[in-house]
């Protein structure tokens, strides 16, 4: 029976089996490239189907961890191999397994060192799934940091002209954040004698200690999210990363920060979270407005979308620290939705980049003439990004605002201006790229969408709309858990935030 299998370990390490396959491919360069692509695609596609089992076998009514696996690892040390998912981590695993095959499919334009590229992607998938499935803090950290290795290479080897700068910035920025978290993890380990996440969630740390622990974890997660003002690695990393790298980076890796806040900061340091909530609101609001304005000033498509990611993730942090059910589930929804939409938007850029080899907005215009179907997909994703009702983007933002309104009216009002600004920069981008009359010869010669590209758009669009129309698809999975979390946090609503 499938239910007896260690499904999470299987999911986590299946990509590594794919890596073995890739290493076994023999032949001339052409054969290796072609086969590597196909192997990676099939492996990741297979993993996605296996991961669907998670969704269907998952019991949403039960808020605890499911599919748990435990094995002793560092016996004497209170550190064990412990995996399991709940309503919060399971959607992220699906997001990761869903986006990976699409990203691989979007990587057909990678021409050199295809095998290495695919290996990096599959290793990345292992790290992502493992991170979301880990119920041991040390394991979590292993996967959390392990992500840096393949991503560093993906940006650095297959990236754009300033890839070295971007890769280093990405790596060192995030590393600097996470090592502080590491020290805090050690302190928790020292005090509790275990790194087991469920056990630590039950442990109560002294408020003074919580204060420091919160800051340490914050350093890591804030960089990952990224929150203002530690967001500056993101535009560079996105701009230089290859299309698929950006898709995964925006689609999954940014969510690691939000996930961390929900998994660690809220349940383990509730007092400190409540204490810091107003500051986080302030930073998030700045992120929403500031980066939206910056996005407005961009002339590089990818940079614009990268900045828009920062703004959208600002909603996530507001939702998480609103200490309300709506806010938290809105934040979750927003993360999943942003994962799909931003991946799709980066792919939109990738499609035209593959044809024109520039990301300058100025070089385009009138794309609708030559690629009408592309214009339609782009339009859909653009509208989802601005949070149009009926798309997934709306549900998340609205829920977050509902939560924020209850926590702090000012935050809600200021964050809601992001809705206006978001519309401005996205529509402006769309207008400059797609509308108008195609004038440059290069644009006129752009090939219409290939079937492979449509195959990437279709599933993304499907889920964007599906989630927009039936948000229960996702909300049902996580709401019992979120309700439980909020009731445990109980009276800890950010008291000082009420003063706003």
């Amino acid at each position, binding site marked *: 029976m499938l239910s007896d299998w260690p499904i999470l370990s299987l999911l986590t390490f299946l990509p590594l089996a794919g890596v073995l396959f890739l290493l076994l491919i023999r032949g001339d360069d052409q054969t290796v490239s072609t086969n590597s692509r196909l192997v990676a695609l099939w492996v990741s596609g297979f993993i996605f189907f296996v991961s669907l089992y998670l969704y269907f076998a998952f019991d949403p009514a039960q808020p605890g961890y499911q599919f748990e696996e435990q094995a002793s690892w560092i016996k004497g040390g209170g550190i064990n191999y412990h995996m399991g998912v709940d309503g919060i981590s399971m959607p992220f695993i699906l997001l990761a397994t869903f986006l990976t095959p699409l990203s691989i499919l979007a990587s057909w334009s990678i021409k050199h060192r295809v095998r*290495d590229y695919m290996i990096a992607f599959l290793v990345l998938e292992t790290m992502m799934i493992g991170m979301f499935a880990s119920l041991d803090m040390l394991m979590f950290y*292993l996967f959390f940091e*392990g992500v840096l290795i393949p991503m560093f290479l993906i940006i650095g080897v297959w990236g754009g002209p300033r890839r070295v700068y971007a890769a*280093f910035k990405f790596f*060192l920025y995030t*590393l600097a954040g996470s090592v502080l978290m590491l*020290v805090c993890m050690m302190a928790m380990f020292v005090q509790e004698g275990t790194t087991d996440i469920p056990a630590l969630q039950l442990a109560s740390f002294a408020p003074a200690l919580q204060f420091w622990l919160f800051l340490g974890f914050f350093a890591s997660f804030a960089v990952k999210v990224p929150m203002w003002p530690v967001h500056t690695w993101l535009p560079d990393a996105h701009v230089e990363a290859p299309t698929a790298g950006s898709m995964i980076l925006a689609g999954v890796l940014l969510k690691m920060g939000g996930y961390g806040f929900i998994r660690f900061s809220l349940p383990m340091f509730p007092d400190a979270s409540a204490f810091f909530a107003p500051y986080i609101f302030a930073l998030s609001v700045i992120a929403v407005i500031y980066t939206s304005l910056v996005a407005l000033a961009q002339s590089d498509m990818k940079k614009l979308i990268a900045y828009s990611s920062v703004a959208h993730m600002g909603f996530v942090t507001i939702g998480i620290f609103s200490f309300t059910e709506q806010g938290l589930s809105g934040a979750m929804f927003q993360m999943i939705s942003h994962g799909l939409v931003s991946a799709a938007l980066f792919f939109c850029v990738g499609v035209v980049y593959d044809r024109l080899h520039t990301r300058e907005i100025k070089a385009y215009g009138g794309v609708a003439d030559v690629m009408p179907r592309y214009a339609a997909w782009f339009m859909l994703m653009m509208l989802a990004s601005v949070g149009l009702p009926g798309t997934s983007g709306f549900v998340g933002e609205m829920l977050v605002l509902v939560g924020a309104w209850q926590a702090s009216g000012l935050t809600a009002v200021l964050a809601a201006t992001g809705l206006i600004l978001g519309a401005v920069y996205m529509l402006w981008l769309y207008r400059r790229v797609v509308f108008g009359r195609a004038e440059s010869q290069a644009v006129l010669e752009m090939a219409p969408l290939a079937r492979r590209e449509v195959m990437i758009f279709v599933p993304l669009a499907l889920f964007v709309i599906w989630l927009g129309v039936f948000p229960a698809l996702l909300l049902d999975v996580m709401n019992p858990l979120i309700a439980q979390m909020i009731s445990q946090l109980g009276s800890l609503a950010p008291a000082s935030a009420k003063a706003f």
Partner: protein
Amino acid sequence: MAFSANDWIAFLPETILVLFALVVTLLAAWAGDNPKGRQLVRQTVLLAYALALVAVMVGQPERTELFNGLFVAGGVLSWFKGLVLAGAFAAGWMTTQKWDEGVERAEYPLLVLLASLGMCLMISANDLMALYMGLELQSLPLFVIAAMRTRSLKSSEAGLKYFLLGALSSGMLLYGASLIYGFVGTTSFAGIAETLAAGPASAGVTVGLVFLLSGLAFKISAAPFHMWTPDVYEGAPTPVTALFAIAPKVAAMALLLSVTHYAFGPIAAQWSQVLVALSVASMLVGAFGALRQTDIKRMMAYSSIAHMGYALIGLAAGTAEGASGVLIYMTTYLVMGAGSFAIIMSMRRDETPVQKISDLAGASSTHPLLAAGMMLVMFSMAGIPPLAGFFGKWYVFVAAVNAGLIPLAVIGVLASVVGAFYYLRIIRLMYFQEPDETLDHGMPRQNQAVLLASLAVIVLFVFAIGPLRDYASQAVQELTGNLAVYSAVSSASYSG
């Protein structure tokens, strides 16, 4: 004085090395000037390491005092001895016939053998006299082999510098030892511990301890006693550098461990302070110093300084946990060092060894195995999980946090971020750049074997960490029994 047979069995590894040293001396004198003879010498020495290693592994599991307490064997020391011997074996094995620059001479393996003997004695030392003897037996051959490349000015200069500064450090150490003897009245570690436990230590003892520690800091090249390291690493022939990077550090760290935790265990609060200073200085010097290096061996020198700084964190914690952290750290250090030098030793262009970092440019497309190996080693050295280097850091930092040395841990992790930069720089060269001139193809078989073994450990360390940690926390118990309650006090202070 009568020595029991038991003593000799416990002393078997050293005995094997001594006997082989005698044999090899004869062998070298007899057949040293023809290639076949040299080959024989080399293989005999390797055999000596192998046999000694076997002897270590099958030997006394418990800690046993030998020769009236002059030496001690078994227990955790066996682990360190095993590391040293394995390291010496790897370094000697990779020093193939291809190498000239002096290391092809028959006396080279012999000198290394003698130095290894010295290292084993250092690890076994249980008395200030034995300590000094082992130290000097280790140092003198190393001075010579650092200058082995006689036609190279740099090599001679390195040897001379190493010798002069080594003499200075020996002087400090000896002075410290005599102060301690003067104030405590015994040179035996056990005796020192006993006396210190009995009552408050006089200032003379502490001054002596500082001198002693300074001398030992020189051996592990902890800042500010590190200045020789970059020059010697750069100047010495690469096989010598490889040896330097691997074996003596482990031995000296083991010695430092027994001196502090065992002999001076009762006054842990006092040496801990010194070690904190050394540790911070080393981490910073190591991290910052390496950034601008263009010579890969020089860079590795700074890298090893930084690594010693991290290992010192574990020592500075002054707890059993810290000691076991050091054991884990030094194990990973040795494995990573062996792996990295397996690669550095195979960097050749037109049959000549090269050692510029930029020589690695674009290696990923021309030498995929080499580049992939180097990448993993570098990520591991930077402490990126899930590779081996991370676990070493995890345990020393955990010990520091537990001992209340949180600022030290924070400095440590931040220094590791800076350190990550120069490790990444190598990866960048190999992976993000196109090659201009390619290195020679074909890595020697021995290097391949060492590299693969090292990579296997680095990648699969996640599986080994459980048993290793269990072993380490068990094994260090006997060394750390003398530690004062100091650690318990300080760890309580932060958790409020």
